[in-house]
């Protein structure tokens, strides 16, 4: 069994407290992970400026190259992990064993991370709108059109309170190091794998070890990350998002409530889009914030729900190493049961129907885990609670709602795929401030263009544009 220490600015620290990560089916221990305490992190943050200083010794272009190399190492090589090593296959097996995500999905997530790392130059070019990255290093400079610009780093290191259940979220923090900002990672209890493997890959590729800290631990460590880092990201539920709303130092990522809207002009052809709708709900086990949790249309909603239920209702719970496994297990005891109880409670409301009930029980409890098989709900209106619910498995409601009422009814939406040619409706969608990522046309909610910002531009989160004036002769040197 592996023993994985805390990393304090690259230095391993053996904690006296460890958390055992176990296989969700067999209960077999996989690793012992050292647990930090909040105070340890708080004290280390006094040295955060050294992380940025170490990174600033290496030009951004060079960091990008090293990060690309790290991507190769992360995907293909056996890397150090604690007191042992880990091959890519072992990584997949361990991640699946502790998170419940099928192995082929873990592999797919590795590919996503690799893609982001290997396209880092293009991503940063897109996110900075073509800014010379030396301007981020120096803090100011002159753009090609002769304009002085200044971007001031808002933190020497960014803190991340990461989740256990969505390995896909790691793509969000990968661009941080090439912008010469350090990383303070608090892994989810069931998913220490990606932060440690990525750090090992970064280190092997020449990223200064003192630029990254990893603090596994409990809630007090998460709180310490948010209290001690001048910029941090947290992943959680709606209450977490609400708690940090309006706090410029915290970017809170919560449920996506992503949706597909069918315009009145296309809804009669709904069958053309059934694959797109099913994929948006089901792929990656429906766990992501970009998975579709509701489909909105003014008519044919019952037929749409029926067709989706026929497609997804029979999906079985298969073992994680089965290449056909489409569902992730709930590995935390009681969670699946509680979610199902909530859905059963919601079904008591008028106007909602479980269209998947004829395809066998939805809750499947195993000895050490449980599965929830796909659930498709039909709702006659936007009012019932289940019409706007989101859960960590393939769940979606098909909501009947007039097109002219949709925008005022859908609520916050991370990804909106609006299938319509109606230009007036398109313009209204473009102006809707409660929609984050907008797809106009038949684009699955889960199809991301990595060159575009996700839930806020990370460059704008970490750097503040400001005025910077200096004499003309000095300006010339900054070109």
């Amino acid at each position: 069994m592996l023993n994985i220490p805390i990393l304090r600015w690259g230095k391993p620290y053996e904690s006296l407290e460890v958390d055992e990560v176990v296989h969700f089916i067999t209960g077999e221990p996989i690793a012992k992970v050292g647990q930090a305490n909040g105070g340890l992190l708080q004290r280390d943050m006094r040295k955060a400026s050294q992380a940025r200083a170490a990174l600033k010794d290496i030009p951004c272009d060079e960091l990008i190259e090293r990060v690309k190399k790290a991507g190769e190492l992360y995907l293909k090589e056996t890397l150090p992990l604690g007191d042992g090593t880990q091959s890519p296959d072992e990584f997949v097996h361990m991640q699946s064993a502790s998170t419940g995500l099928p192995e082929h999905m873990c592999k797919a997530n590795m590919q996503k991370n690799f893609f982001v790392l290997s396209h880092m130059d293009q991503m940063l070019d897109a996110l900075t709108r073509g800014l010379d990255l030396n301007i981020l290093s120096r803090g100011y400079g002159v753009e090609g059109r002769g304009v002085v610009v200044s971007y001031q780093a808002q933190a020497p290191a960014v803190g991340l309170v990461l989740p256990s259940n969505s390995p896909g979220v790691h793509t969000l923090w990968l661009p941080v190091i090439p912008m010469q900002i350090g990383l303070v990672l608090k892994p989810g209890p069931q998913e220490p794998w990606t932060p440690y493997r990525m750090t090992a890959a970064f280190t092997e590729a020449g990223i200064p070890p003192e630029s990254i800290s990893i603090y596994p631990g409990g809630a007090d460590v998460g709180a310490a990350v948010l209290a001690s880092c001048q910029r941090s990201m947290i992943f959680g539920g709606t209450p977490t998002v609400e708690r940090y709303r309006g706090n410029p130092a915290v970017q809170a990522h919560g449920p996506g409530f992503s949706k597909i809207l069918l315009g009145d002009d296309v809804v009669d052809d709904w069958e053309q889009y059934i694959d797109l709708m099913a994929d948006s709900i089901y792929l990656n086990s429906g766990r992501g914030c970009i998975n579709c949790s509701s489909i909105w249309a003014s008519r044919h909603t019952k037929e749409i729900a029926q067709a989706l239920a026929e497609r997804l209702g029979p999906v079985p719970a298969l073992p994680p190493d089965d290449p056909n496994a489409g569902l992730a297990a709930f590995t935390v005891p009681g969670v699946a049961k509680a979610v199902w109880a909530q859905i059963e409670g919601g079904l008591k409301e008028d106007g909602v129907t479980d269209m998947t009930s004829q395809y066998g029980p939805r809750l499947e409890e195993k000895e050490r885990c449980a599965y929830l098989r796909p659930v498709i709900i039909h709702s006659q209106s936007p009012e019932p609670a289940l019409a706007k619910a989101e859960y960590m498995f393939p769940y979606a409601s098909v909501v009947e709602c007039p097109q002219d009422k949709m925008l005022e009814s859908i609520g916050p939406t991370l990804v909106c795929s609006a299938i319509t040619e109606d230009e007036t409706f398109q313009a209204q969608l473009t102006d809707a401030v409660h929609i984050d990522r907008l797809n106009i046309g038949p684009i699955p909610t889960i199809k991301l263009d990595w060159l575009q910002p996700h839930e806020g531009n990370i460059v704008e989160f970490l750097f503040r544009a400001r005025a910077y004036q200096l004499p003309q002769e000095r300006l010339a040197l900054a070109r």
Partner: protein
Amino acid sequence: MSTLDQASTGELEAAVKRARDQLNAHAYETVQWHFHPSTGCPFWLEKAESLSFDPLKEVREFDDLKKFDLFQDEWLRGGPVRRWVPKAYADKPVYVFETGGTTGVPKSRIAIEDFRVDYSLFSSTLPDEYFPPGSNWLMLGPSGPRRLRLAVEHLAQHRGGICFCIDLDPRWVIKLIKKGWMEHLEAYKQHCIDQAITILGAGHDIRCMFTTPKLLESLALELEKRGSSIRDAGITGIFSGGTEFTPQWTRFATEEFLDGVYMTPTYGNTLMGLACSKPVTPEDNYKITYYAPQPRAVLEIVDFDDPQSVVGYGKTGRVKLTTLTKEFFVPGFLERDEGEREQPYIKYPWDGVSGVRPFHQTAEATTVGVY
């Protein structure tokens, strides 16, 4: 030959027997006191009428206390509080101390002298080298309706010093956490720390301190920001407590900011008094083992499903408290903590408990380590 910390098996066995004999005699006397109409309190005298046994006749030793049902903490919520005052003490000045109470009615316990006695006894465990007699104290922690402030103040006075106090209201802290008002929480903590630093820097010759782990961490951090340290501020000895006082936290504090300042963990509450720890050393991986102030209070580690059965040494169970003073009788109260049963130790020749942490079945609903 033996030292205080090392004893032969024979010496330890003899000490264990003496302690047990003393406990049995003390349990008998305590029950006689609380259930005798001339001395007992109304609560127990009334309760005796519904018992299936006669405590005055059938409790001869400590184990006989198992004849009582488990003590229900609900009995301590609400009044009249006088029902807990022993008739023999009816004319004495009575304090009431509370625990809990963030929402609903807090549990209350009456006290007359117990808190002073408990802390006088605790005082004898403190090394004079680090807690110099005559030096002044800082009490940085919860006061209000809790006994802690008066108890620490008594400890300081008992050792010839004067105690400065800075209040922290844990009920408000828990509300802030539940509401998610983390900025307010941070500001409130800072408000307490600022006051502590002001007092420490005001020339009062403060050497000793009670505080909680969280506040101690914050105090150390803030002092260091200002170019000072716990040691530089003049502190030589600290006692602290709480379930977040883990071996890892102790190591962290020792290695990172105490700089040779002595710190001793304690485990206590309004019902029990103060359990002391066996010396905590790096060689023993900073293991913390607490021993109750027997015979005034007894800690047993009992089976989760059968609270009348003590678990084997080294095994995990729930902490069960029995308090046996003339002021207060609590037979078999299940604490909200669990831990491992530990062997007697020559200085405290009775069972101890290590690894104290929130009871796993209620841990998720409990907010601990808030202050």
